[in-house]
């Protein structure tokens, strides 16, 4: 009954295996089938998801607070990256995770990134290097680690090399500056149709070495049952996040799956494996289901449904969003929200196979360790199943993992699938690369 209620706002459209092909022939490229847009009334943004936003902010603030107190309280901390991370393992090892990427983006969104970037460039970093790294290095050179309150240097630097080659450099530099031991967790790129057993064995062996290193740092013995509990909580959070993301199939979508997903990306990528994160996603899904029931979306009117590819321009987050808002464009899916894990297609951590399950997630169940062409398939599925009208590619200079070759992606979607595609270029961290005109 409840499901039926949720589904009633879904648009009716004849679906079939060739639905996207039909668009490419007489579909979105054909003006007669373009979404009807009534421009007579302006689109406004509703203040619609206060609970989710506020809960996320409080949770992330608590985590930052714990990091700030860690040194005084004798808690070990471990720097780790967002993409395909193994945060549950660090938590089970009683190592409090810290995420330099989160620090960098928070400084960008607070308009504090440019002086830090310039500081790093003074130290020799190129204007063509990833600005995420430079903002972080600049912060460290200034003597700090946190975006607001100071965070001590990490006890351990865990480079989860999951796709992004810059991660290897970033964390090697962080270890060099901080003096913390560097653990290079090498995750083979997803390059075969099925995960090779050799890849899983290799990652599991490294996870076991990481556990041993954490034991030495914390002086605490690792408990596999605690990891199982963490993974069960992680799976609950993944389920809740997936529920939220599937709700944007409704018309109107209850939230913007690009700009609003940031409220969920913190908890899913940073706090996964905690009861707080699992509860958060249960509540977020309930809140978004309520909005679906009430037929409410993020805008006064949903005129165009988009899929957005690429990270956002954090220094101009609101300005960029406004560009879409005024056209009534709502993102119903985004690739950026899957950098830590692609949960909406069904993968969950399995507490019965703890290390193997973590390895599988790192190897293939996240966006960054898949090829750019595999991303085309992910986006195509979003366009089809979430019934999007167009694709927006936000191409950022800093992150070549995301951006290098997005022109080929545009060719594929426009020429081969007939999906209207917009490609815009700026940066996720460096305000010098953003111009609205």
């Amino acid at each position: 009954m409840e499901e039926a209620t949720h589904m009633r706002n879904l648009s009716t459209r004849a679906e079939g295996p060739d639905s996207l092909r039909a668009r490419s022939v007489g579909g979105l490229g054909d003006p007669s089938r373009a979404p009807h847009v009534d421009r007579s009334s302006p689109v406004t943004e509703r203040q619609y998801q206060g609970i989710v936003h506020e809960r996320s902010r409080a949770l992330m603030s608590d985590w930052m607070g714990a990091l700030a107190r860690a040194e005084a309280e004798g808690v070990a901390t471990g720097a780790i990256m967002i993409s395909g991370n193994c945060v549950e393992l660090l938590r089970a090892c009683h190592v409090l995770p810290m995420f330099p990427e989160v620090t960098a983006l928070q400084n960008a969104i607070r308009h504090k990134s440019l002086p830090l970037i310039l500081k790093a460039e003074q130290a020799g970093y190129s204007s063509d290097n990833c600005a995420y790294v430079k903002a972080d290095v600049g912060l460290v050179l200034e003597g700090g680690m946190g975006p607001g309150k100071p965070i001590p240097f990490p006890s351990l630097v865990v480079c989860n090399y999951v796709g992004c080659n810059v991660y290897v450099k970033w964390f090697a530099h962080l270890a060099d500056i901080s003096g913390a031991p560097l653990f290079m967790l090498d995750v083979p790129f997803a390059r075969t149709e099925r995960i090779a057993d050799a890849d899983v064995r290799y990652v599991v062996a490294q996870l076991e070495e990481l556990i041993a290193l954490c034991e030495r740092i914390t002086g605490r013995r690792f408990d596999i049952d605690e990891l199982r509990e963490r993974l069960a909580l992680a799976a609950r959070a993944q389920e809740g996040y997936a529920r939220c993301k599937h709700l944007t199939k409704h018309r109107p979508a209850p939230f913007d799956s690009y700009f609003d997903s940031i409220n969920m990306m913190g908890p899913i990528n940073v706090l996964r494996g905690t009861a707080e994160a699992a509860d958060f996603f249960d509540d977020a899904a309930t809140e978004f289901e309520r909005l679906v029931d009430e037929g409410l979306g993020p805008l006064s009117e949903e005129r165009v449904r988009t899929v957005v590819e690429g990270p956002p321009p954090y220094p101009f987050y609101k300005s960029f969003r406004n560009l879409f808002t005024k056209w009534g464009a709502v993102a119903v899916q985004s690739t950026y929200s899957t950098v830590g894990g692609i949960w909406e297609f069904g993968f969950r951590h399995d507490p019965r196979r703890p290390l193997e399950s973590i390895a599988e997630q790192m190897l293939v169940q996240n966006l960054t360790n898949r090829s750019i062409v595999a991303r085309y398939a992910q986006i195509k599925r979003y366009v089809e199943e979430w019934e999007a009208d167009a694709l927006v590619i936000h191409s950022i200079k800093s992150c070549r993992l995301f951006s290098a070759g997005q022109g080929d992606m545009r060719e594929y979607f426009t020429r081969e699938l007939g999906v209207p595609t917009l490609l815009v270029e700026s940066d996720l961290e460096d305000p010098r690369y953003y111009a609205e005109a």
Partner: protein
Amino acid sequence: MTPDAILARCRALVAEPLGAIATRWRDGHPGGRAVAVYPVWAPAEVLHAGGVLPLALLGGGSSVELTHADARFQSFVCSVAKSTLELGFQGHVKGVDGFVFSNICDVARNLGSIYRRNFGDAVVEYLHLPQNSTSPAVVPYLASELRRLAATFEAAWGLKVTEPALEASTATYNALRARIRALYALRIATPHRLTTPELYTVLRAATLAPPDEAVAMLDTLLATLPEREGRPRDRLRVVVEGAFCEQPPLGLLEVLEDAGCYIVEDDFLLGWRWFRDDVPTSGNAFLALAAAYVNRAVASSTRHESREHRAVGLIEKVRRAKADAVVFTPAKFCEPALFDYVLMKQGLERAGIPHMIVEFEEKMWTFERTRNEIETFVESMLFE
């Protein structure tokens, strides 16, 4: 054959499109295949052991105008990725049976899959080379990755890589690398006998020839070079570092030398002289090659080494080559080189080794500003 005659042959080979080289070789080796490998390192031994001619895929240099690749890759992407893609669109690699890319950087990673999407007639394989240098699990993993590569070519073309064949190919490439090391030793001792553009051309030709032919050519060159005329000059001895993937235009190398430098060491074509010494040829050949990658490789911006600081390998190179200074030459937009520049520069400064940086692009054609910068650097060193 004189050095000049060898150089003329090398220049002619380097000027040929890869596709033409591949086609000619296949015509002479029925059933064989030719596979082009993108920088930095690829297991040429494994390819060769299966009856494949490995060829270096190093972009289009200044020979190809971009008419398609600019629409695929943005302005902030390095030139070698774009021109390599352009080679495919313009048919310059038609005749090459396969391509191998690896995880040297994010751009190369994406280039590999875009190659596969756009040029599906060829076999395009992607290798994940390990970045963990200390785990006991890394050598078995890499051996399995090398076997997977062999299996790909066996499935595609029926070319099987046996252990004895791989041992023999490893010995062949050991011989080639030994000749290259000897050439560099000669260069370090008597840099006036072979200019850097000449040395580079010879090496580039060695990446396009069957390895046994390359060994024979280098043997002749090594035997005749000591007799070559040449007058030592009072120049600054420098190590050039940073051009391990995108290759610098010959004009830049000429300017570096004309402006008062002897380039006594470099990292051009690094993958073809990847190992510090011979790869063992007894025992399990796949494991031996994998172990050599982990334990005998030169320092590189594309292979993380946890056991030593990034500057250590460069400082050793400076001392071994009796160099006075380092000229960093990162390609424009090359993140591995640009990131490593910071750590290496700091290491050089701690060791008291002077350095300067010159960015380049493969299509760079005017060098006057670079010449001025280098001359100033050289004068500051020679007359301080």
